[in-house]
């Protein structure tokens, strides 16, 4: 087996036994990137010297006997997370030369655990999109079929993990942006409870929905990264003041059955429009496996699900219109040259050149929805329906421990298939958006393949701060399902 094909926990064991060094492991990952980056397009920035210096430092720490679970492990980072001394572009032309003067809290945490950064991963511009086609930097292709999208907005983060171009990665999830690409690329992705992971240094898109989370090759690796990144941070005023469990111990003690677990099946998901038969079939098979493990299925109702897409596409653009006002060409990023019309003319010309179409579309929708005379009908109404969606979940979780659904209605679609029709693209996020509106955690775990050999993911959602429950159930399911060990053949 090649070193870059290792999972985080496997690499850790070999590093601990000193059978491999971080330098060898990192070289292998960098070599893999060199080998296939042109085809996959997962990375925006790779700085081999930066990575190797960290690997060498990790080897020194290991030789002194101070190894932690992530010491010397090369991880890819979504390019929306600030990395001191390494470009952070957010997939935007506007920030193509931006080098943050500080590290995001998650980076400080990964570094203190000795992790190595393999580079910054491609994404939809400012995380706005479901396919990574809105990146101003490059196209990322799904490693399982290069004519298809990897999902989005953390498309680079999922593709890189699936194609062994890093051992694990961080993404961010505002409406499904970790879970959906994880599903499309056949890897595991978690959106933690809002407030579990500090957003300090995560470039803001829709602040009340954004959450950083891991994308990994298996559930155990996700637990490892969750241990590393969860925790209170005084630099984020929405950070949760609580103790977090040891997620790795939790899965170690998960056992091999799901006895006593009640899994809710929302009746509204039964008749979801446009559900691909292969997705429906894989989810059904997974339910049989869970049932055989002792899980009990109970019907639940999420009656306001039908409004989730509309609520999301009011709230997210409203918050974006405010957050993205900072891109004016004064403090950072590109500025248009030789502009007319004073400072307003400079702002406009700068934003015209620097921002892509999807970003502009959402800023315009958000500004419109927040403008006088429309605020109550759009933002006010959406915020009220958001309460109803939260109440739906609270009621459902009185009857069950977690809710099961597909992650996305279809496997990865073809590049260019939906770009002309933003609304159709938005509707493909139906199963993932409500999680963020409610602030609860959700996990995407591989559950099968379509007839064409494309990966399909299963989603489990649970109540606030019940990540431990999700990880345990996903771990038991992953073991029992024992999906055929396929690797994408990158041609």
């Amino acid at each position, binding site marked *: 087996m090649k070193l870059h094909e290792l999972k985080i926990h496997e690499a850790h064991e070999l590093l601990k036994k000193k059978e491999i060094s971080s330098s060898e492991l990192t070289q292998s990952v960098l070599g893999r990137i060199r080998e296939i980056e042109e085809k996959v397009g997962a990375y925006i920035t790779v700085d081999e010297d930066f990575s190797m210096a960290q690997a060498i430092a990790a080897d020194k720490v290991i030789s002194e006997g101070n190894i932690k679970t992530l010491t010397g492990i090369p991880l890819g980072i979504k390019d929306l997370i600030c990395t001191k001394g390494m470009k952070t572009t957010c997939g935007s032309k506007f920030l193509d030369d931006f080098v943050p*003067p500080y590290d995001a809290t998650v980076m400080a945490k990964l570094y203190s655990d000795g992790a190595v950064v393999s580079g910054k991963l491609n994404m939809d511009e400012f995380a706005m999109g479901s396919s990574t086609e809105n990146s101003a930097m490059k196209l990322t292709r799904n490693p399982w079929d290069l004519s298809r999208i990897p999902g989005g907005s953390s498309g680079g983060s999922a593709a890189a993990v699936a194609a062994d171009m890093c051992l694990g990665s961080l993404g961010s999830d505002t409406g499904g942006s970790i879970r959906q690409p994880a599903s499309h690329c056949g890897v595991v992705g978690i959106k933690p409870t809002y407030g579990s992971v500090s957003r300090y240094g995560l470039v803001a898109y829709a602040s009340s929905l954004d959450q950083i989370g891991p994308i990994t090759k298996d559930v155990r690796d996700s637990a490892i990264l969750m241990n590393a990144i969860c925790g209170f941070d005084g630099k984020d005023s929405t950070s949760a003041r609580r103790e977090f469990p040891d997620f790795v111990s939790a899965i170690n003690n998960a056992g091999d059955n799901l006895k006593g677990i009640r899994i809710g099946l929302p009746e509204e998901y039964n008749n979801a429009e446009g559900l691909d038969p292969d997705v429906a079939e894989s989810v059904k098979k997974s339910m049989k496996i869970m049932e055989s493990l002792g899980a009990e299925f109970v019907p639940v109702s999420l009656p306001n699900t039908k409004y989730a897409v509309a609520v999301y596409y009011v709230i997210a653009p409203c918050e974006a219109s405010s957050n993205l006002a900072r891109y004016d060409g004064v403090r950072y990023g590109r500025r248009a040259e030789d502009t007319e019309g004073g400072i307003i003319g400079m702002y406009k010309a700068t934003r015209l050149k620097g921002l892509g179409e999807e970003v502009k579309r959402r800023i315009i929708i958000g500004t419109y929805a927040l403008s006088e005379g429309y605020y109550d009908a759009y933002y006010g*109404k959406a915020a009220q329906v958001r309460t109803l969606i939260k109440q739906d979940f609270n009621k459902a979780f009185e009857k069950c421990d977690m809710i099961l659904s597909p992650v996305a209605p279809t496997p990865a679609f073809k590049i260019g298939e939906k770009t002309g029709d933003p609304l159709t693209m938005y509707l493909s996020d139906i199963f993932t958006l409500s999680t963020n509106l409610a602030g609860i955690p959700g996990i995407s775990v591989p559950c099968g393949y379509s007839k064409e050999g494309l990966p399909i993911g299963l989603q489990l959602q649970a109540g606030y701060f019940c990540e431990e429950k999700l990880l345990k159930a996903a771990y038991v399911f992953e073991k029992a399902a024992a999906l055929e060990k396929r690797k994408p053949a990158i041609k």
Partner: protein
Amino acid sequence: MKITKEQVVQVAHLARLEVDEADMERIAEQIDKILEYIDTLAKADTEGVEPSFQGIDHDTAFREDVPVGHVGQENATANAPSSEDGYFIVPKVIG
């Protein structure tokens, strides 16, 4: 048509955005379609429902009023397209 091309131009101006004339028709149509979809919200019964501005309720975050480290003037202006002596330079604002 819920939103006209002229309204899109006006809202874009408020957001300090410009849209290429060539793209305007298409973008206005897309935004119109999205707004029309969003209008399904009108059907939701929200009589007496309190709005939620975040998923999870947090208490207001307080900390002790003590100075903490800052990024520094040099770092703060390091990424600026135009700066001098620790100041950001912008086109003339007052006539």
